[in-house]
């Protein structure tokens, strides 16, 4: 039996297509409890690799032979060792190329749809962390919404499409991941747009993304319009593309709503959040298709792996949009909040340009599950 490598893109397709897979995770129990590769039809066994150095005989009965088996570790080395031992025992198994480190950083591009006048929208699904970012194509130009620091993957995709990405939008100053907006703008000579109310402490120059601002770009005349919708942060701004798609950032998700406390301002921002969700979005065209910056559960992905929903439909199914009583709403968004994301203060400082961690430190800062939504 030979040991095969499975890469993050192949694994992504198994997640999206809801295929069955048996994952033998050989990291420490703590690491496995903290986060793992989620799949709706995945099953798991966690045995640390150091228990298997002398052989895999003890676990052979627990490793099924009727479905694909993937061995996973932090960086790949230990999973290769264990996969080889299983292979010597006659089993046909794969290991995850690059381990959880690569998985946490992998972006799976999924086409959302075509725009009326020849443009296209792609959603980049970061399955390992639940982040969503977007590339909008118009002729030979591209724009990005809430791009992550993993700019090489966007560069490679833009190259494949033959476009130049010149307009980078951040819906707010992120606290859960390091933004790629500024670095993309620097490398392509493009413009980085950021809501000015989130940018008090920002140390670099940027284009202010103010309420009502309209950016038209590329051969297909794609229009991006900014609408001020504070509440997650004081500057949080939604973007409407061609009056068809509504990019809500961290204000509104499919299954939940944003939380206002990341910068320690929960109490101050509750009424802003309520106004954005219960007044401003309600006044918009209810046929707009909502695309958020995060998803929380794999069930939010449709059969193509896309995360999107009609705004009007969200008012029917998203319980965060159905709280009539203001005090109850205040309690919902300011009490029983999940823990803060790992290193959120350092991440904010990085996004302000105040500190410049090296790539290894950036990876470390983003490790762990995402905790941006009220669930």
């Amino acid at each position, binding site marked *: 039996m030979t040991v095969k490598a499975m890469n993050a893109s192949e694994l992504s397709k198994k997640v999206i297509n809801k295929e069955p897979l048996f994952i033998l995770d050989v990291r*420490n129990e*703590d690491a496995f409890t903290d986060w793992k590769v989620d799949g709706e039809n995945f099953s798991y066994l966690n045995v640390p690799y*150091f228990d298997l150095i002398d052989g895999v005989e003890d676990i052979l009965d627990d490793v099924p032979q009727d479905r694909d088996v993937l061995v996973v570790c932090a960086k790949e080395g230990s999973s290769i060792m264990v996969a080889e031992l299983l292979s010597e025992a006659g089993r046909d198994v794969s290991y995850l190329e690059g381990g959880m480190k690569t998985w946490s950083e992998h972006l799976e591009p999924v086409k959302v749809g075509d725009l009326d006048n020849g443009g296209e929208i792609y959603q980049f699904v970061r399955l390992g962390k639940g982040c969503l970012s977007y590339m909008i194509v118009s002729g030979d130009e591209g724009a990005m919404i809430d791009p992550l620091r993993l700019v090489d993957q966007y560069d490679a995709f833009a190259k494949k499409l033959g476009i130049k990405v010149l307009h980078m939008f951040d819906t707010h100053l992120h606290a859960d991941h390091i933004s790629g907006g500024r670095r993309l703008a620097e490398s392509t000579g493009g413009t980085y747009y950021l809501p000015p109310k989130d940018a008090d402490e920002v140390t670099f120059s940027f284009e202010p993304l103010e309420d009502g601002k309209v950016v038209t770009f590329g051969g297909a005349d794609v229009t991006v319009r900014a609408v001020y919708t504070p509440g997650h942060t004081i500057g949080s701004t939604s973007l409407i593309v061609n009056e068809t798609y509504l990019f809500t950032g961290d204000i509104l998700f499919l299954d939940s709503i944003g939380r206002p406390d990341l910068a320690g301002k929960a109490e101050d921002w509750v009424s802003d959040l309520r106004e954005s969700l219960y007044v401003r979005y309600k006044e918009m065209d209810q046929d707009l298709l909502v695309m958020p910056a995060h998803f929380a559960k794999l069930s939010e992905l449709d059969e193509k792996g896309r995360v999107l929903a009609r705004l009007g439909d969200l008012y029917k199914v998203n319980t965060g949009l159905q709280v009539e009583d203001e005090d109850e709403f205040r309690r919902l968004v300011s009490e029983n909040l999940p823990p803060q994301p790992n290193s959120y203060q350092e991440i904010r400082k990085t996004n302000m340009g105040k500190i410049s961690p090296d790539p290894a430190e950036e990876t470390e800062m983003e490790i762990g599950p995402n905790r941006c939504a009220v669930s």
Partner: protein
Amino acid sequence: MIKANEVLDAKGLACPMPIVRTKKVMNELEPGFVLEIQATDKGSTADLKAWADRIGHQYLGTVEEGEVLKHYVRKSGNDDVEQEIKHPHVIDNEQLSEKVAADTIVLVDVREEAEYRFNHIPGAVSIPLGELAARMDELNKEDDIHVVCRTGSRSDLAAQKLTEKGFTKVTNVVPGMSQWTGETEKSV
């Protein structure tokens, strides 16, 4: 420098090799001995700790020197086995805690130096059991000496040795550091 009985160079090796090598060296090592593992793989700290806990070895701690992580692990020794305590004068941790607070005793920690360096009671003097015979003159025969180790078994041997050599007030602390909840300090 922290003293170790053996040093393993696992620098430049990626996971799983630091643990694979450690396991091999530990198998050869004498019970109770301390191994220093030098590694550059950042994940080695969490893995070594989890591995040692599972096997029953003592993970003592890690010192960072530039890019190099120096881990200290003590091989599970015969002090883990329940042994009959022979020295007649014994107090428990709670009583020790009172005496430490009153500052009336000389507390001698007879664990390996590496164990002491990562975690000890403030004011305790480090004289590892193996060095006790040679270093006895550092202690005063009339002092109220209390001997502590991890579980009370090495300190029992030390207390017997001291009594044989004419020390008059020697008390063994049982169980000792493994159950100590009071203040501790590091000297690394």
